[in-house]
């Protein structure tokens, strides 16, 4: 009994948080401000960094060349790591194994009210960003972008990352082979993000 009470309390708080966030004039002010930031961030950095450097008596051109030299090597160093992980992911996708995972996991995800259609998005997201986006697009074509499924799928895509790709690229660039708990941590983050995407969409947009 107490458990259900705490659960309802948590849901209520979440609801409030989500609704407050939702009622902030998201669509207009926030987007405009953020777009402004995004559009001007890079030009701003490209102006400020060299000018500040110059003021601080840095030889800007020499420094640039000095740093830039590393670019090629870094990119090339990533290749073996990226080939290893992308080939494994590509084979996995082509084999159709995803369907089995969906079948195994769907009873679990049904418990939190997650529409079965969105499960492939969740499973694909950590493996392949474009693959997951493909599924999201298909779902929205079929159910409409403003359906609950469409909204959950969109939120899922935005709220987690392609963990395997990031780990391969970031560790590859510095030559790290023993990744220790990097993948488990990343996947736990992804899982929480994906579950929260479902929960929040159910709360904010309701069942329709």
């Amino acid at each position, binding site marked *: 009994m107490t458990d259900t009470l705490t659960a309802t309390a948590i849901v209520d708080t979440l609801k409030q948080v989500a609704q407050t966030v939702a009622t902030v004039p998201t669509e207009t002010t926030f987007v405009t401000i953020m777009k402004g930031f995004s559009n001007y961030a890079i030009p701003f950095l490209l102006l400020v960094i060299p000018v500040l450097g110059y003021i601080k008596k840095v030889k800007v051109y020499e420094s640039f060349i000095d740093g830039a030299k590393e670019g090629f090597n870094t990119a090339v160093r990533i290749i073996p790591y990226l080939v290893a992980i992308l080939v494994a992911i590509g084979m996995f996708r082509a084999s159709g194994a995803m369907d089995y995972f969906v079948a195994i996991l769907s009873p679990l995800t049904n418990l939190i009210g997650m529409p079965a259609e969105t499960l492939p998005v969740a499973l694909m997201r950590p493996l392949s960003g474009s693959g997951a986006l493909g599924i999201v697009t298909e779902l929205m074509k079929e159910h409409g972008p403003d359906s609950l499924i469409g909204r959950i799928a969109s939120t899922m895509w935005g709220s987690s990352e392609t963990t395997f790709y990031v780990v391969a690229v970031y560790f590859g660039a510095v030559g790290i082979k*023993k990744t220790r708990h990097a993948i488990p941590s990343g996947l736990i*983050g992804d899982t929480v993000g994906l579950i929260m995407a479902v929960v929040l969409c159910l709360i*904010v947009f309701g069942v329709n």
Partner: protein
Amino acid sequence: MNYIWLGLMVISLVVGAINGRLEEVTNAAVTYAASAVDIALGLIGIMTFWLGIMKIAENGGIIKILSRAIRPIAKWLFPDIPPDHPAIGAMLMNIIANWLGLGNAATPLGLKAMDELQSLNPEKDTATNSMITFLALNTASICLIPMTVIAVRAKLGSANPFEIISTTVVASTCATIAGVTAAKLLQRLPSMKKSNPHRLPESSKKEEK
């Protein structure tokens, strides 16, 4: 990583055989290998450019200033890193670029941060706790405007393509907190402690760089 990689390969081949899709699976290996190289090579230009800019920022002391600005949080998240180290500044820039959805700039900045973290690493082939915490921050990255998916929604005629921003921001914040917490908890596991490059006392750490 060993198990995951092996698992993906074995599952793909076994399931591929069961489904009679072995040919597709092998074709995928070839295509994806090629596209991995394309992706890496595609990074060269943008990588070279940002690493150049970052070097100016580093030599001008801008990265150090950034590092100092977030010292309290950084000390808690990355106890292995000396407080004024440029790694902190580079990580901050990467995370901000992620928030703003500047994917092109975020990757080179992140790799620069990894490079700085690696300079503190006594065991060059093993990830440090700080690297893993940084990746956890990064893989669950909060993106304030998920432009890609908004564009798809708009194209498919959504009445309000932006309405998923609030849910996305809250969900990804939870994901980030969970990822970092997981990284912090998992590093306490005995097996992770044993593989920690910093398990040995200070000695070997300082002479790098």
